[in-house]
């Protein structure tokens, strides 16, 4: 059975690759820009270009198949149910099968947006797999510099982002424990609407436990004199960063024009 840890979120691949050597900020900008472009224009052609870009990125990252997220079975059941509902929507184009007129517009839209989701998530996964978590806050700090000129609360945002990123493995671990405790105490879920209450109770437990953790963390930060602001590491744009940015730029142009 797939667990939260099988999703391999924000886990950097141990084997170095050209993508590992890029500055984290470069990768953040590229993922944001290409992702936004393909979401803004989700045609099949644009998605083909974005998928090709994702494929190149995966090759450059030496991304092995074993590192792909292992999704639980229920996810595919939900996806399949969504496909069925979309199929019932019908619409142009029509095909004639055994005397029936079947409209394929609904299923085509479903497929297009499912592929879009896979591409956007794929870009984020490659970013997470090639960037040490510790590099992200510094890169976000640098990238947010223009917003600091506008007197936006960038320091607070970066501090919150840093805490979220650092606490992520802890959250995954706690979700795993909570789910395990739930399975032991409630090995069989009710088959009626009572299942909603079970989910509600588990969510309340998760929120209550998170609040306690957050309170403890806040006290620990206060005891150490607050968050302060660590100077971000210097930006080192190399030739590889420029090449990656140019390739991303060409991809975005192709997405917009196709």
């Amino acid at each position, binding site marked *: 059975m797939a667990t939260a*840890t*099988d999703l*391999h979120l924000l*886990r950097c*691949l*141990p*084997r170095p690759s050209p993508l590992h050597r890029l500055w984290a900020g470069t990768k953040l900008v590229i993922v944001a820009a290409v992702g936004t472009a393909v979401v803004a224009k989700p045609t099949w052609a644009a998605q083909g270009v974005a998928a090709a870009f994702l494929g190149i990125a995966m090759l450059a990252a030496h991304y*092995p198949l*074993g*590192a792909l997220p292992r999704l639980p079975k229920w996810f595919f059941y939900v996806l399949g149910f969504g496909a069925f509902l979309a199929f019932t929507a019908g619409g142009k184009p029509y095909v004639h099968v055994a005397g029936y007129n079947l409209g394929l517009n609904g299923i085509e839209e479903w497929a297009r947006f499912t592929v879009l989701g896979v591409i956007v998530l794929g870009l984020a996964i490659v970013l997470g797999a090639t960037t040490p978590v510790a590099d992200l806050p510094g890169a976000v700090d640098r990238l947010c510099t223009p917003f600091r000129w506008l007197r936006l609360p960038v320091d607070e945002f970066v501090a919150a982002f840093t805490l979220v990123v650092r606490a992520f493995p802890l959250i995954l671990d*706690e979700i795993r*424990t*909570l789910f*395990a*405790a*739930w*399975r*032991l*105490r*409630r*090995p*069989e879920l009710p088959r009626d609407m009572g299942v909603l209450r079970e989910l509600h*109770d*588990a969510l*309340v*437990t998760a929120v*209550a*436990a998170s609040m*306690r953790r957050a309170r403890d963390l806040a006290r620990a930060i206060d005891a150490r004199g607050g968050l302060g602001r660590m100077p971000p590491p210097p930006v080192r744009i190399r030739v590889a960063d420029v090449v990656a940015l140019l390739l991303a730029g060409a991809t975005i142009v192709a997405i917009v024009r196709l």
Partner: protein
Amino acid sequence: MIECSGVGHVYAAGSPWAQRALEGVDLTVASGERVVVVGSNGSGKSTLAWLLAGLMKPTEGYVHLDGEPIDLTKRETAISFQHARLQLFRPTVASDIRFGMQLPDRTVDDALALVGLDPDQFRDRKVDELSGGEQRRVALAGAIVRRPRLLVLDEPLAGLDAPGRKALIDMLRRVHALANMTVVSVTHDLGYAALLGDRAVVLQRGRVASDSPVADVVRAYTPSTPSAPSAETAPSAETH
């Protein structure tokens, strides 16, 4: 009887992050026995606790309870985690102990009394108003009320002060004597191992380094300890 044979476990097997936690663990625990698993951080003791509770299947070997694979639906095993709040799923103490079962008030009160909480005082208390130690007791009451054959305690004394530790150890002895269930405690703190079990299994880097009476292990790892410690005087000697 619990039987682990050739048990090995690899997290994220088949991925670049594959990490071996256990290897070739052979372990037999008789019914009603109190065993303490001791090891430093990363020795695999928590993984073993999860496998014993039936929460994971080992990637190698098998874990059997009375000759059969552990089936969670039979409610034969229970586990108490270090972070008790994650085990409490209902807003009040009594409703949480009843979680997933239909239990009469008397059974709930008995379970509370067994873990040293006054039923009249605690029955209707909200779980978020309780201290960490009280939450742990409520979680334990919720576990033992199901009368599991095996109770696994993951770091049962972590985060408790000396009086809290003494109270919990006394309570665990009482629970074991009354319910006669098999209890496996997992701890990194060798100083308290003698108070948690009669037999100690020492894990090192995922392998069983020794399996002997707890007094022998305490002597072997803390040579200066003149005799078995009491709950109040036990030193906090870590295995590494």
